[in-house]
């Protein structure tokens, strides 16, 4: 072995010991992953289920009874609350006892039978306007199924709907690949940024800098544990989602792990960059936070990138999290090949190149 390799392997061994050496740190790298794997796929859903719908029925005729029966059959509502007056209508919304309330006016059924139906009035809780709107659209589709009068309905074209990759539109199938991206992001950033800051705080960074190690070697030494931790956590999530949640892994596992390398390098670059600006662990951690929160929020995980204003969409091109979510989801669910996400891969590699070069340069400058 050349001296360079011996030094490098010793450094990597030291870095691994620093990150994985004690039981408490090890537990903190594994336990949260398992906890998140158990909770988040169920929690992160934009579906509307198990809600209460309030109904003020001033008619009591056959049409409103039919509608109410249909309402109870959808998973969106598990309880129909019968209201006795307008005051109660406002009360249940105010107190969040119902997400949506409907009001059928007097003679509603009779007018409907005569093909001159009144509108059905609905009030949704605007504090949860997103869910309220979804609930209202469920109600609307129930209403349009109700046949009015005896006149034959003129059929339109027959439409079939198919959801590729996820026929039942299960949310956890969407969440699990994204979770691979989210969890590895946090760990990779924290492992790198905090480890440099910890060395600086404890004074061992100076020892490292006076050693024959070059900045390049220090970069590799800091990147290796981050890469190992990220891949290890990703493996836990992948195993859990394939065997626990039964979400079939359709693409190439090798490709996913290969794409993880530029991703983690981009993060290591950012982590080291943050740590060169900081003198304490506290600053490094808060710095990571200042980057990772907007990073996750603007990654398309919470709301699609295409909904953002144009200037933010441009900024997200530099966001490694955005690209890796597309890649992870593409490979996992859609069996995507590198050609399908070449744009994302290029952007990711460029970010990795830029951030690691900058952090190397900054390291070098601190040396001289």
């Amino acid at each position, binding site marked *: 072995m050349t001296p360079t390799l011996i030094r490098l392997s010793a450094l990597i061994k030291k870095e691994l010991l620093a990150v994985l050496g004690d039981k408490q740190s090890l537990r903190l790298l594994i336990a949260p992953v398992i906890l998140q794997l158990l909770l988040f796929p169920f929690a992160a859903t934009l579906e509307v289920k198990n809600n209460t719908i309030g109904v003020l029925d001033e008619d009591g005729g056959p049409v409103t009874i039919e509608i109410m029966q249909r309402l109870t059959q959808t998973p969106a509502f598990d309880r129909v609350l019968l209201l006795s007056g307008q005051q109660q209508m406002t009360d249940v919304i105010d107190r969040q006892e119902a997400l949506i309330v409907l009001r059928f006016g007097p003679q509603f059924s009779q007018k409907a039978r005569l093909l001159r139906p009144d509108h059905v009035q*609905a*009030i949704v*809780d*605007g504090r949860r306007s997103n869910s309220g709107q979804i609930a209202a659209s469920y109600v609307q589709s129930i209403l349009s199924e109700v046949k009015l009068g005896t006149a034959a309905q003129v059929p339109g*074209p027959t439409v079939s709907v198919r959801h590729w990759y996820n026929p039942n539109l299960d949310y956890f199938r969407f969440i699990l690949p994204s979770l691979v991206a989210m969890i590895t992001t946090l760990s990779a950033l924290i492992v790198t940024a905090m480890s440099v800051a910890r060395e600086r705080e404890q004074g061992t960074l100076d020892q490292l800098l006076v050693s024959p190690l070059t900045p390049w070697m220090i970069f590799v030494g800091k990147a290796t544990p981050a890469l190992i931790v990220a891949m290890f956590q990703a493996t836990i999530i992948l195993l859990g989602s394939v065997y626990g949640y039964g979400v079939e892994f359709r693409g190439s596992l090798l490709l996913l792990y290969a794409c993880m390398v530029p991703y983690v390098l981009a993060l290591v670059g950012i982590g080291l960059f943050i740590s060169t600006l900081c003198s304490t*662990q506290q600053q490094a951690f808060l710095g990571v936070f200042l980057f990772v929160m907007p990073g996750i929020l603007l990654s398309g995980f919470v709301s699609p990138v295409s909904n953002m204003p144009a200037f933010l969409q441009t900024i997200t091109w530099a966001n490694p999290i955005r690209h890796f979510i597309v890649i992870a989801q593409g490979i996992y669910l859609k069996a995507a090949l590198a050609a399908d*996400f070449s744009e994302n891969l290029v952007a990711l590699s460029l970010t990795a190149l830029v951030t690691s070069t900058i952090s190397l340069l900054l390291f070098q400058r601190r040396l001289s």
Partner: protein
Amino acid sequence: MKRSAVVRLYSLCKKETLQIVRDPSTLLITFLFPVVLLCVFGMGINLDSNVVRLGIVAHDTSPPARRLVETFRHNPSFEVIETARESELGDAVRAGRIQGFLVIRSDFSKRLVSPALTTPTLQIVTDGAEPNNANFVAAYAQGVIGAWSRQELARSGQPVPRTLTLETRSWFNPSSVSRNFLLPGSVTIIMTVVGALLTALVIAREWERGTMEALLAAGVTRYELILSKLIPYFVLGMLAFLVCVVMTHSVFDVPLRGSLWVLLLVGSAFLCSALGLGLLLSTVLRSQYNAAQAALNVAFLPALMLSGFVFEITSMPLPIRIVTSIIPARYFVSAMQTLFQAGDVWAVISRSLLGLTLASIGFIGLTLIKTRRHLA
């Protein structure tokens, strides 16, 4: 409290305040972080208007089919990409360039005249990897097809079938702007970061460096110690809270219908629980790195995912709903959303205050117990 104790507490608080003021990162997280995060939430996160890229393959070029394509083109919710080959659109879905596509079969217009056959003549394919978008594509495309059917009936002079329609009003938020509920909810994230994360780090540092033992050896009681940590960070947290409230209300125009004192009350209650959690974690873990990791996982991520501010709690399965009931952020989110948009609805506020107070007492109490154990 004895006079000497008051003096001690005062000087401890002074020491803590000096530490806060001298570290730029603390001030950055208190003042810059809320501004950045609120801007991201206010501009970047949009759950209302979706513009969906939809591919269309029309194998039928008859006038009704063309009119159907035009109806899609004119709908503001769709950006239509028309191609001749289905395989191209399949690739585009896989690469995530479009969110779905519509196939108009070649016998589409023929079958409109003789609808006896039942095989579908229109096919909608969506990218199910993103369920929210897929739902939206399917529902809106069917809506557009329905509108087109009614137009066609009207054109040919046939009676248009009547259906029941819903007239929806959104209370508190008439134009259903998602920002109006996202911003008050996102204050939770900011307060969690300032309250739990920052505190966990700062106090773990004292344990790490041994200055905590030094303080305790100097005769400071654990009540004084914990109070001296709580008070300065409480002030800092409330400052961050005020920044959030002012920005949400005056920069992003979210109405503030509740009264200010209730808002401050709820804010302090949540801050106490967050500070308590931060104190507890740092006391138990005693290392900045581990305390930071733990705070991230037990304070921050639950505040983001399980608090009901992006993802609805009622839609979660029962075991998870039970888990959310012990998460302070959940009570804070519902109180904040109510206070900003609805006003002082005591049915909601009192429930939240109760939850937050219990959490604060629990976390701070546990910290007191743990501090004593470590001393012995």
